[in-house]
């Protein structure tokens, strides 16, 4: 059984929808329109405020209010969505953000539907009646374009691939769907520890201020936090300072850390090793501040300043505040 829909699995972080979810709702609306389909958001667990937030962006919300979905776990999410597909029919495509959760549960779900999946896409379009995507491979040194032939076609999509859409004139319809998840399914969450107290999420942040070994000592990273605060952004770091034990791995940017796509990336005291810049290939505007005129980072930047980050950062903070 099929339904003429494209679903976006909504992601909620710290109580609200992620920027990627809103962007995907815009993409789903456009893609659906082009083929006479309907765009819908799927909310697993969650609250009325989030359903309402979705309703401003998409004409239909399928809300699965199962208590066992209140905290995310991969096999439970995959199971619930598999049930939803069974009761409602197979949508044409299922999209979600390429964050920790999406990358974990969506390939699992695609396989249990015996269908095709493409990971970490940066664009989606119709190629005849098939959905096609563009995605970086080999750390972004080249891109590949794929068409997915089976339905539902599954995609995880990077932040920043699409613009956040306008609100709808009339809010979408919220439809409760009942799906039950077995008691004994999945892993039991026993504890969670925040690693980056209060900081905005690095992968989602529209602006990222990053520091490397050139920042000198851990205390100097306060400047980056302050600038991130002014820009409503997040702090990232190079591997050198993670290896030095100054910061946890989860804010490392690069090939063995996070691949991010912010609107603005400011690299301070970072030399620009290939491993690092592979993580920022899809950043829109890159600024490099480095005191070495020959630093490789300038080759991967849009704007460069040769100078001491410890002098320039306070200047930037002061001038941006006014």
């Amino acid at each position, binding site marked *: 059984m099929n339904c003429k829909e494209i679903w976006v699995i909504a992601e909620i*972080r710290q109580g609200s929808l992620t920027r990627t979810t809103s962007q995907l709702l815009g993409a789903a609306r456009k893609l659906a329109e082009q083929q006479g389909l309907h765009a819908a958001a799927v909310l697993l667990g969650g609250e009325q405020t989030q359903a309402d937030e979705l309703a401003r962006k998409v004409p239909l919300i399928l809300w699965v209010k199962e208590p066992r979905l209140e905290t995310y776990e991969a096999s439970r999410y995959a199971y619930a969505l598999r049930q939803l597909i069974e009761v409602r029919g197979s949508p044409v495509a299922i999209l979600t953000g390429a964050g920790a959760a999406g990358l974990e549960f969506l390939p699992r779900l695609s396989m249990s539907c015996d*269908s095709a999946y493409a990971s970490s896409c940066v664009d989606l379009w119709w190629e005849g009646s098939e959905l096609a995507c563009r995605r970086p*491979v*080999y*750390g972004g040194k080249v891109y590949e374009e794929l068409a997915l032939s089976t339905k539902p076609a599954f995609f995880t999509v990077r932040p920043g691939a699409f613009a956040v859409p306008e609100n709808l004139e009339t809010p979408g319809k919220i439809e409760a769907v009942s799906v039950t998840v077995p008691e004994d399914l999945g892993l039991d969450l026993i504890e969670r520890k925040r*690693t980056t107290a209060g900081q905005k999420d690095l992968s989602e942040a529209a602006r990222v201020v990053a520091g490397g070994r050139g920042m000198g000592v851990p205390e100097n990273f306060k400047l980056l936090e302050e600038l991130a605060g002014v820009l409503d952004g997040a702090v990232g770091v190079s591997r050198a300072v993670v290896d030095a034990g100054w910061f946890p791995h989860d804010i490392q940017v690069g090939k063995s850390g996070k691949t991010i796509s912010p609107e603005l990336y400011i690299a301070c005291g970072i030399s620009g090793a290939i*491993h690092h810049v592979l993580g920022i290939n899809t950043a829109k505007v890159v600024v490099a501040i480095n005191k070495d005129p020959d630093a490789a980072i300038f080759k991967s930047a849009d704007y*460069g300043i040769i100078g001491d980050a410890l002098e320039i950062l306070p*200047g930037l903070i002061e001038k941006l505040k006014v």
Partner: protein
Amino acid sequence: MSLKIAVLVKQVPDHEAIVQLKSDRELDIEERYVCSFFDEVAIEAALNIKKDNPETEIFALSAGGRRAVDALRRAVAMGIDNVEHIGDETLETVDNYYTARVLAARLKTQQPGLIICGKQAGDDDAAAVGPMVAALLNIPHASAVVSLEMAAGTGRIKIGREAEGEVQYFESGFPLLVTAEKGLAEPHVPVVMRVMKAMKTQAAHIPIEELGLADIEPGGRVRRLRYAAPPERPPVTMIEQPFPENVVELINHLRQGGVV
């Protein structure tokens, strides 16, 4: 309790290898291949479990052409004695779906308690094969795992999984699949003796025909339309004024570009 661990490894171009377009159908890849970064983390994580639990049995699997044997040699050099090479060159061009099918078919007969993959392979960067294998075996899985702790004598394991801004800890029994994130273990450089041993290793070979996958068409789901060059960043604009004028100039550029 004796635990059987399978480690899945893949040979991929080094991060520093040059990869560019030959045409929109074909890539030009510099001949610098290594065992994928996260797969070495997976190997080390398995060895660490064995250190504390000497009964543990570890084997490594790689599916692919002749190159796959090099990934297995790395596993041997690092300390895994038991390695298996699945399939042939035809697997070099298949999608994640088919790779997962092949690996799962073999793992079904071996029945490991714990399967450790890399978070993502250094070529397709998909992070997909691990979760797909877990789905096929119908076992739970966790991606991007940064800690694994065996609870002594209980047959259970505590898993730390990295998500945005936090580490989530789960408890699980076996069987279980995890994908290794950096930080789970620190891959060691193998000693010369082991490297010599690895060079002489003949990996056991399993032909695809033995896996009972005849009814699945490789490449039936995902069709590659083309390769494309990455979007190019325009040449850098250096801001030459002295401090603090350079800061003002930079902010002007950023405001014009609408990013601040």
